[in-house]
């Protein structure tokens, strides 16, 4: 049994378009800081 990430699930359910999924993935990529950067910020 494979797992689908939530965006893929919504796409296959017809709830979102592929452009909406791409926009969300791009947005997620922009706002998620690398773990090293978050650790550095905590340390400072």
């Amino acid at each position, binding site marked *: 049994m494979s797992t689908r*990430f939530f965006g893929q699930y919504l796409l296959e359910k017809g709830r979102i378009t592929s452009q909406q999924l791409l926009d969300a993935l791009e947005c997620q990529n922009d706002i998620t800081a690398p773990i090293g950067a978050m650790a550095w910020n905590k340390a400072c």
Partner: protein
Amino acid sequence: MMTEKGKVSVLAVDDSKTMLAMIAAQLKDSNFEVVATASSGLEALEKYQQIKPQLVLLDIVMPEITGIDTLERLLQADTGARIVMVSSVGAEETVRDCLKKGAKSFLQKPLQKEGMLNILKNVCQQTGVEL
């Protein structure tokens, strides 16, 4: 190219004959029809030029040239090609990469009939293909 029955024509590309048969079976009794199959990226490029299908279902992991390379080559040949990538690797990074390179959508294996039909219908609606 629309089929004689007024269905949307599909070129299915996968190196697994079982998968090609499964796709054709799942699209039976729908608005879509697999009019040709290819088992490699190079064969897909040839068949696409011959048939000009309305949709392409394109597997990513294949010998010779990968599905991603095939996607780029198909879009170089026809910027209007409607290509839906298919893979068992459904990682967000892979999906984003395919969509950014011009794929119209993404399907994850194992294929589920309802999901596949939803995605194909969605692509048709977004790109002006009448169903």
